[in-house]
């Protein structure tokens, strides 16, 4: 019991400042007005102060604001009762229970410290003080006092108070510039005015909220996760957390957002191009693995929106990071001709339970027990694929293929462009009615039913898109009779399962440019520490 306690300057009830410089002899006792045990200790403190107050400095920091005066009056306290505003001193002294008593000697060593009320401890303290000061022992009627009372949790541990204290304390984990908001300003309007918003209201990223958000990851707040285009802003864990707060995330979502930032900021994914393209691409996030159930991501009914907090806010957080850390704002480097509602958010889980196939992340080389986020750059979707009557596997597979004809334009084939097909459970039922139907077989079927002769793809009066007439003439009739499927290779067709149990409606997302000139989908394991 020798570690020194931090100094403080606190004001008493009359407003006079009292400086405790770390040394005694002093008796410091933290109290809370509405704590029953503190009210047992109150009269004892007064009696001790009368007995030893000439030789020992008594200081009683109160945690109860205006009610500190009630406490002092109730017990007739004559020693300084101090205002521990915001419990900052309580936090820095680092105790858990009030009353928290410290007897400190001349050198600043803590001779005695206890929390709560154990009568024997207090009596022993009185004896110790009598002997140390050479004063007569305080006249306390010890037998009238309870032998033991547990005390109350210190107010600085109230969640609101504690997170604020941690955020502001010396050694705080936060480094971001603090933006002061005038008391007369409407916070929601202020945040719009600052340009932080995607157009929807934001949750103010107060230090308390950011500190709580950071509890969601084991990563250091100052770890740089990625450099975010177009302005190459460093996305620290802290910056990601701030945007996750603004988006409305819970702390347990943060690891997913971090993994998504890592994934989109790779050269393969090319978030710069995805954001800047006039074509209007957006990130579609698919989450797999145990984290889905753990944090309540939705891969079932209504998976593609709306109404689920995890889906909505994780996707939104990623977008806010690209905007606020990367600097991609509409009218600046973001040049989408029409925009795209997926630029607000698009994140969902795969319905692994209803899938007959290995989950997307396992297909991509991860372990089933890994939690993984996969990002796709998509320009369109979700586009409904309606077939309520097919009964045979090849029929439903054929319909899903025909449904993908719309990628770019129905006329365009042989596209080196991704599509993300989201097959609903009822269509899965039909696909597998006769037994297993592999993903590859579905891909082959899509390519088979979409195959058209090249002659149908020549520029004409109906559409100037496609093969230039001069090229077609050079190709000749034999070449033009060759069939071209929708996709340049079946590997461009990505397939997941999602949706509720009722409804024979699958869906598709249409890609942006795929490959080195565009974007390649990326999967990243979610770091759960």
């Amino acid at each position, binding site marked *: 019991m020798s570690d020194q306690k931090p100094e403080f300057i606190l004001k008493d009830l009359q407003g006079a400042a009292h400086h405790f410089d770390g040394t005694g002899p002093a008796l410091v006792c933290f109290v809370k007005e509405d704590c029953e045990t503190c009210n047992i200790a109150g009269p004892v403190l007064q009696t001790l102060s009368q007995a030893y107050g000439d030789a020992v400095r008594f200081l009683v920091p109160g945690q109860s604001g205006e009610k500190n005066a009630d406490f002092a009056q109730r017990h007739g306290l004559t020693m300084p009762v101090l205002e521990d505003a915001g419990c900052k001193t309580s936090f820095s002294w680092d105790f858990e229970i009030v009353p928290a008593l410290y007897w400190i000697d001349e050198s600043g060593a803590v001779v005695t410290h206890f929390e709560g009320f154990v009568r024997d401890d207090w009596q022993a303290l009185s004896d110790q003080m009598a002997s140390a000061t050479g004063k007569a022992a305080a006249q306390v009627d010890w037998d009238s006092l309870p032998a033991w009372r547990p005390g109350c949790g210190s107010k600085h541990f109230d969640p609101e108070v504690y997170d604020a204290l941690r955020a502001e304390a010396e050694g705080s984990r936060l480094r971001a510039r603090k933006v002061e908001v005038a008391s007369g300003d409407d916070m929601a309007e202020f945040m719009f005015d600052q340009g932080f918003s995607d157009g929807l209201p934001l949750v103010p990223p107060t230090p308390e909220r950011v500190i709580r958000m950071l509890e969601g990851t084991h990563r250091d707040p100052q770890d740089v996760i990625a450099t975010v285009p*177009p*302005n*190459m802003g460093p996305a620290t864990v802290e910056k990601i957390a701030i945007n996750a707060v603004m988006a409305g995330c819970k702390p347990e979502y943060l690891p997913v957002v971090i993994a998504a930032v890592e994934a989109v900021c790779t050269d393969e994914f090319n978030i*710069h191009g995805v954001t*800047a393209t006039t074509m209007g691409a957006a990130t579609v996030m698919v989450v797999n693995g145990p984290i889905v159930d753990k944090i309540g991501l939705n891969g079932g009914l209504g998976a593609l929106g709306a109404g689920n907090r995890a889906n909505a806010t994780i996707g939104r957080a990623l977008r806010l990071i690209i905007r606020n850390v990367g600097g991609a*704002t509409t*009218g*600046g*480097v973001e*040049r989408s001709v029409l925009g795209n509602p997926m630029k607000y958010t698009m994140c969902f889980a795969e319905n692994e339970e209803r899938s007959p196939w290995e989950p997307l992340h396992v297909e991509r080389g991860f372990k089933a027990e890994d939690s993984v986020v996969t990002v796709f750059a998509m320009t369109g979707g979700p586009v409904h694929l309606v077939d309520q009557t097919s009964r045979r596997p090849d029929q439903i597979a054929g319909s899903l293929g025909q449904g993908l004809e719309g990628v770019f334009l129905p006329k365009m084939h042989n596209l080196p462009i991704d599509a993300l097909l989201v097959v609903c459970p009822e269509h899965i039922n039909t696909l597998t009615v006769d037994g297993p139907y592999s993903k590859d077989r579905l891909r082959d079927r899509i390519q088979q039913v979409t195959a058209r002769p090249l002659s149908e793809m020549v520029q004409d009066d109906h559409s100037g898109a496609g093969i230039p007439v001069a090229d077609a003439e050079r190709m000749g009739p034999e070449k033009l009779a060759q069939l071209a499927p929708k996709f340049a290779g079946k590997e461009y067709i990505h397939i997941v399962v999602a949706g509720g149990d009722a409804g024979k409606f699958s869906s598709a997302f249409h890609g942006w440019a795929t490959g080195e000139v565009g974007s390649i989908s990326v999967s990243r394991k979610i770091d759960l520490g």
Partner: protein
Amino acid sequence: MHDTVWFEIQGIPSVSIASSVFGQAAETQRKALGMEGARYVLVPHPIQDATDDEMRAKAREAFDQIIGALRDA
């Protein structure tokens, strides 16, 4: 603009060329990259559907501006 800024940092004079609707994007980007003097030349929009001859005409019109911008280095 990223490429132009990169070249300039290496000491190699550079100019970006874009179609006319991308002036605002070029302004935003060069400012964000901290090189407000990074040069760009705009050619008439659009280019996606332009024929080769139309593209040659745009290039001819822009040629003096491009050389001029490089000479201003």
